[in-house]
């Protein structure tokens, strides 16, 4: 049985109240015992959202890319939910979550909801919190949900499972051909974005990626897109690539 407070939050969220949605997300983050029941209750309201995972090494411009992409998505009339994950300190357990700072043009947009989340040291726990938050944002009526995560590893593979499309953001200077051949996120990404494409070495990185990705043996279609997020260049192409995948879903 859900408490009166939680029932009120669910009703509030379904009525479009942002503070209710925000508090439900906190319950998901803190692994509340009520969570399974909440998710179950919201099931009939879910299933419309398209989830895009965006991952890559720190400093690659993911948050800026999401900011610009969100502007494009909004111009098409879709609503957006963003979950921005940053690491917790292994020393103090605290965190500075700084992704939102790139997205301040969207703070007052009624149809954009942004939530920052710390990893809190547990891959499994984080995946669960993110998965539940995706479900909450979906039930709240968001059309597109973007999940931003740092780095490579198990977290990203679990994001791959919950996302309809996984975008990997790389920048020139990532490494030589051998780095590109290594197993991991490059293999599982659906779209690889080479951001900061005006920097030296962008063309070489694109060529090395092309050489690695083709021929594709498993029928997993991967696209490579070059962008300069800060200048708004290539965002239209990224949107198109995502939209094509969404339509094929």
């Amino acid at each position, binding site marked *: 049985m859900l408490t009166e407070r939680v029932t009120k939050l669910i009703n509030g969220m379904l009525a479009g*109240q*942002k*503070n209710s949605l*925000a*508090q439900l*997300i*906190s*319950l998901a*983050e*803190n*692994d*509340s015992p009520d969570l399974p029941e909440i998710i179950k209750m919201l099931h009939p309201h879910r299933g419309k959202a398209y989830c895009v995972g965006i991952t890559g090494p720190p400093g690659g411009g993911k948050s800026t890319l999401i900011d610009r992409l969100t502007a494009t998505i909004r111009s098409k009339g879709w609503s957006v939910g963003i979950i921005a994950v940053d690491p*917790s*300190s292994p*020393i*103090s*357990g*605290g*965190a*500075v*979550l*700084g992704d*939102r*700072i790139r997205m*301040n043009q969207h*703070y*007052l947009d009624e149809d954009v*909801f*942004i*939530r*920052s989340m*710390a990893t*809190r040291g*547990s891959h499994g*726990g984080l995946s669960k*919190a993110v998965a539940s938050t995706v479900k909450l944002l979906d039930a709240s009526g968001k059309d597109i949900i973007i999940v931003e995560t740092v780095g490579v590893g198990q977290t990203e593979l679990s994001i791959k499972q919950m996302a309809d499309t996984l975008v990997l953001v790389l920048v020139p200077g990532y490494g030589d051909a051998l780095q590109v051949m290594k197993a991991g996120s490059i293999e599982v990404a659906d779209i690889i974005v080479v951001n900061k494409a005006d920097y030296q070495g962008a063309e070489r990185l694109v060529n090395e990626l092309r050489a690695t990705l083709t021929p594709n043996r498993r029928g997993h279609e991967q696209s490579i897109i070059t962008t300069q997020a800060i200048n708004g260049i290539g965002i239209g192409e990224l949107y198109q690539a995502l939209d094509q995948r969404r339509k094929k879903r």
Partner: protein
Amino acid sequence: MRHKKIRVLIAKPGLDGHDRGAKVVAQGLRDAGMEIIYVGLRLTPEQIAEAAIQEDVDVVGIDCLSGAHMALFPKTVSLIREKGGENILVVGGGTIPKKDIPKLREAGIAQIFGPGTPIEEIVKFIETTLGKRGNDNQD
């Protein structure tokens, strides 16, 4: 198992380009184990209030060195309350003249931390104030 953490939004309202103090406080609170959502410079009270609601923070720290605190701080608090953040603890920092502090308190700023405040004092204030409430707004 994930545990409840104290979440703090750090923001600078208005046209003030000096964010070093806000960044020092953000890192100090991080080192005390809190989760800081750092949103930086040149935000309107509306933007700060909306971010505080969406992030469901326990604390909002606003900082102002421009002299516009008497306009910006009370406005930020009232918008946070209006948007449903009744329980959010709001604290302020920056170059605030002593004579303004009672008025700011009246407007809902729980505490003002001036230049030179040790981080430990801010941590202690936050932990004690949230602790006294028993964190009843959170799970």
